[in-house]
């Protein structure tokens, strides 16, 4: 198989954007999964869909409206959840349906858009242009650096919110910061796998790495590696096989998860742990 297609500009941009989104998703996703917020990414992406529709409706660059709508909705829902004490899954359902509802209304009010709605639903990483690539790299670097700076209080807050509070971690502010980071990550990832498949990139690499029984740092490193590997493999495979890149990325992640579960069943990880303990 010739790999000449890797020299194409659109392919390189897709790989760069994909890698940036994959790293952000794996990092944000680990905290989301551990806080039992796995579907939060899905809810945010549906809000972002409403935001994109709003952008097209108002003739504004849709990425900015999507960011504004999903960040403010995420903050709003967190406040609502606290003040009304509704459960996490109900709050996610409210966000998810209101975002999609808003999007559908705007699309129908404008009698449909000239843009391809399909590309937002299922991703269009091969269509990323240079300015998108640059802004996604910038945003991703911002998310990654912020997560690294706040990694210790974030871990403490995720593990035990009350102990973190006693230790003087500004729990509420950190929560809002984290939600904003999650919303921005979703915007970046939407281009890669689309609104409907975002949860896969947030959840799958993390639950796969968690199966391996390592500590927090190693789990995050493994998760980032799996996420990047699946994205690169998925994009590269999609071109010669003429498949949708989002589908092949997600199915690569699913294959990794199933493979890891089978390996665990075969005793691969526990044997290693046992050997370590004996030595």
């Amino acid at each position, binding site marked *: 198989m010739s790999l000449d297609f890797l020299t194409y500009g659109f392919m390189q941009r897709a790989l760069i954007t994909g890698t940036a989104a994959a790293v952000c998703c794996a990092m944000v996703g680990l905290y989301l999964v551990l806080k039992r917020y796995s579907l939060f990414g899905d809810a945010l992406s549906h809000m972002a869909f409403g935001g994109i529709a709003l952008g097209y409706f108002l003739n504004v660059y849709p990425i900015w409206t999507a960011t504004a709508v999903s960040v403010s909705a995420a903050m709003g829902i967190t406040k609502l959840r606290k003040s009304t004490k509704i459960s996490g899954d109900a709050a996610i359902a409210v966000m998810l349906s209101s975002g999609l509802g808003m999007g559908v209304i705007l699309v129908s009010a404008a009698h449909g858009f000239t843009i391809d709605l399909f590309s937002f639903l299922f991703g269009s990483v091969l269509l990323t242009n240079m300015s998108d690539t640059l802004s996604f790299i910038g945003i991703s670097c911002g998310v990654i650096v912020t997560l690294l700076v706040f990694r210790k209080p974030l*871990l*403490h807050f995720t593990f035990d919110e*009350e102990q973190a*509070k*006693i230790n003087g971690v500004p729990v509420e502010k950190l929560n809002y910061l984290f939600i904003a980071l999650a919303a921005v990550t979703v915007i970046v990832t939407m281009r890669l796998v689309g609104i409907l498949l975002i949860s896969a990139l947030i959840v799958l690499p993390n639950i796969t790495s*968690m199966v391996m029984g390592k500590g927090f*740092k190693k789990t995050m490193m493994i998760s980032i590696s799996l996420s990047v590997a699946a994205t690169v493999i998925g994009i590269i495979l999609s071109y010669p096989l003429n498949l949708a890149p989002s589908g092949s990325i997600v199915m690569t992640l699913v294959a990794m998860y199933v493979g890891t579960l089978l390996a665990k069943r075969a005793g691969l990880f526990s044997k290693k742990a046992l050997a370590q303990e004996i030595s």
Partner: protein
Amino acid sequence: MNVLDVENVSASHNGALAISKISFNVREGDLLGIVGPNGAGKTTLFRAILGLQNYHGKIKLFGYEGSQYASLLPMVGYVPQKVSLEPNFPATVYDVVEMGLLPEKKLDRGAKLIQNCGCCWNRIFGESSKNSEKIEKALEIVGLESLRDRRISELSGGEQQRTFIASALVKEPVLLILDEPVTGVDMEVQNKFYSVLRKINKENKITIIWASHDLTAISDHATKVACMNRDLFFHGEKEEFFSNKDLMKTYSESAMQMHMHNHSHEV
């Protein structure tokens, strides 16, 4: 000097009054055992002290309230009765103990406040200990060195509890609040834990408040006793509590009443 002043504190738990107008103080170096039946409000009292619970009344740390209280709060080590853990949480014992560490800046700020009111703060691990050394020593104190790289979720309840004790010690606390800390821990480790408790209380002058149902352990290790059941009905020297038969009777009756009350609710 008082480390803690609790003045007329009332608080509710799930809409019901859990503690009513409780007042007592804890002096520097006290090892105060708090006894009381289930549902007596011990945990609610601790949560009020730790800023996790709304309350009426006044609580002071080293005589401070408000923002200075908040600056000192991180130097309070807390081991709760039970921590609910996410089953697959990828944190090792070392990771969890590390979470307890406080930045030097916070310790310095707290130490200055403590000195300003004429008290002293003794570090458990010495002035120049690096963070990694503190963690290793804390693990050694609770006897978990060999399990440092194991995931916390894979450990037994007792081992998890020891991890949380190490996490409370590693912050070099000025006050330790322990809510039934050795529930589910085997006798050997219990004895080791009590000797550690006495050691850090005597040698490092760390003030300790410790809730327990184990009257023998309280009688063996505490220096003072408080007895509560929504209200505080005794606070004083250990010897006084254990030699006063009327008090012991009141405690037993009160515990029995609470037991019957809980039981009738269950039925």
